[in-house]
């Protein structure tokens, strides 16, 4: 491997992030084509709806930085949102429902981490497996039916405002700040770069890559629990298949945001912008009365385009 492999533009500020360009393009396109896109109400709507995806994309960024992937996030999200619904309906308490969701999410995250770090199973296979497990459990636990009668304390999470700002946005900003601090100002965050960039360096330094990797996936699971609360609050119900496919949007957002799948180079800000890009894309297509199936196809195309675009830039 020669030096050419490591060559990166010396001045990163000169590179306008591709995701910013993509986001601006999407806004421009939909501003013209989609009726009602450029309205305060719609913009607020996009922002609030994107918070759910952000909760998943932030930990997904870290996971992808370790050269991994978590395909089970959507299924785990489905399960945790069901936990919020079931537990809060049974106990009347939002806090208990939330705790249950985070606990379940954490369990799956730790399971993923163990499969990948301890047993050495490639991430996409391991999480494909736990996807199946979570999906199955969601169906069993809900008996295939929606769970309704959600206490108001839960649905308020989505609709309430704090000093005029919708609570989901407050939570999203909080989550972003926490993850930012985690990645750039803590030892854990520093080691995440090493997990993807040079795992042996950690061993030489006397640290345990296994424990750190489990931690990264556990974080993903826990955030799936947080997202579960938001989702149940938004839908005002728990649904046996509602979250399936979210992992794809999360991966898309991270990929579009410029985090590479190799060597530990990640950017949280990019992931956040990527979340907005995906949100804008879906919103715009929605306003153009195109069904969710086309939306999904478009997100797929967006990922491919973003990866290709990024590949071109890093090669030039």
């Amino acid at each position, binding site marked *: 491997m020669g030096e050419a492999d490591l060559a990166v533009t010396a001045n990163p500020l000169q590179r306008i992030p591709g995701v910013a360009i993509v986001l601006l393009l999407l806004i421009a396109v939909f501003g013209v084509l989609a009726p009602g896109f450029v309205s305060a109400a719609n913009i607020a709507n996009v922002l609030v709806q994107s918070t759910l995806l952000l909760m998943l994309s932030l930990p997904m960024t870290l996971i992808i930085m370790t050269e991994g992937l978590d395909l089970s996030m959507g299924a785990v999200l489905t399960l945790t949102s069901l936990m919020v619904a079931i537990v809060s309906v049974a106990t009347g308490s939002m806090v208990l429902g939330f705790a249950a969701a985070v606990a379940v999410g954490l369990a799956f995250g730790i399971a993923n981490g163990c499969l990948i770090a301890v047993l050495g*199973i490639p991430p996409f*296979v391991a999480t494909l*497996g736990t996807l199946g497990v979570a999906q*199955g459990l969601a169906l069993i636990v809900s008996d295939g039916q929606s769970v309704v009668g959600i206490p108001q304390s839960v649905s308020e999470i989505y609709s309430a405002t704090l000093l005029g700002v919708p609570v989901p946005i407050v939570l999203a900003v909080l989550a972003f700040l926490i993850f930012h601090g985690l990645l750039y100002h803590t030892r854990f965050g520093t080691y995440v770069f090493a997990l993807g960039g040079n795992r042996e360096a950690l061993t030489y330094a006397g640290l345990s890559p296994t424990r750190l990797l489990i931690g990264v996936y556990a974080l993903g699971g826990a955030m799936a629990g947080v997202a579960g609360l938001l989702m149940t609050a938004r839908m005002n119900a728990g649904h046996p298949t509602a979250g399936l496919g979210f992992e794809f949007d999360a991966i898309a957002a991270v990929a579009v945001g410029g985090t590479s799948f190799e060597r530990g180079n990640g950017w949280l800000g990019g992931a956040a912008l990527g979340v907005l890009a995906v949100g804008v894309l879906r919103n715009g297509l929605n306003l153009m009365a195109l069904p969710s*199936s086309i939306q999904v196809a478009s997100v*797929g195309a967006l*990922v491919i385009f973003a990866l290709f675009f990024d590949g071109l830039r890093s090669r030039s």
Partner: protein
Amino acid sequence: MTDLTKQVFAPRALISGDLLQVFYRLIAALLICLALTFLSESFLTLANVLNVLRQASLLFFIASGLTLVVLTAGLDLSVGANVALSACLAGTVIHQTGSPVLGVFVALATGAVIGLLNGLMVTALRIPSFIATYGMLWVLHGLTYWYMAGEIIHGFPAGFRQIGSGYLFGLPIPVYLMLIFLGIGTMFAQRTTWGQEIYAIGANPVAARLSGIPLSRRLLLVYAVSGTMAGLASIIFLARLNSAEADVGESLTLPAIAAVLIGGTSLFGGVGTVFGTFVGALILTLVLNGMNLLSVNASWQPLVTGVIVILAVWLDKATRRGE
């Protein structure tokens, strides 16, 4: 001087070593049959055995093409969605033109085109295969659901339906097709130069390229084959179900991967056989069949398949110690 490569694995011996691996798996399949015979009285009935064989053949069509992709250390996660779209397009064509031949052609063509697109993403756009095919999965999923708009296409010509539901000398026709393709697949992988090149690519793609193997062309080939086989599978589905809707075959991606892995093909490339995938398909179908016979809730199936995939990969890793 320190050795700079991490590519050296413990040598998986010779061809007879591979045969040994398949032999173990055959034993495993027989043991499962034995267990099921004891556990359920409906297992060893003619109807059930034929059913198992037919289910296994559906799985095998998809998994056989996938085997070639996995041999090159790649993955094709779009196969299930490929089957769905091909089935829907072919179904529409058969319905509207009344010609099964045209339908077959459309199914194969759709599968092939999707496969080629996957291949192009991997070779020309340099996108890692699991991400490229994962993206393709969602694109196809979206297109299929949009195209069908919730409708179901129903009712195909009787002659066409024979492909899926017909019998020949007491065996379902799909089983014959499975055996035919098992033969073709094995011939291709073990007895053609292209097959040897594919194994070489899986074992060390850099060295393969520097040995004069046209890497991109061969990779395009394997993805195209995987896609075409998915197209083929969609025809059998149409013939068997006598209908087409947007989710036909979609849930088969994970089981197909499971079949390939159980059969001994390594995710890391260069090791595995089509015959192994055949046995893997049998084993998985037997397990799922057993669950059905024992009245286990169908929701457990994706769960069990997931666990099996994990176990199979772990076994592969454990027997492949790095030097």
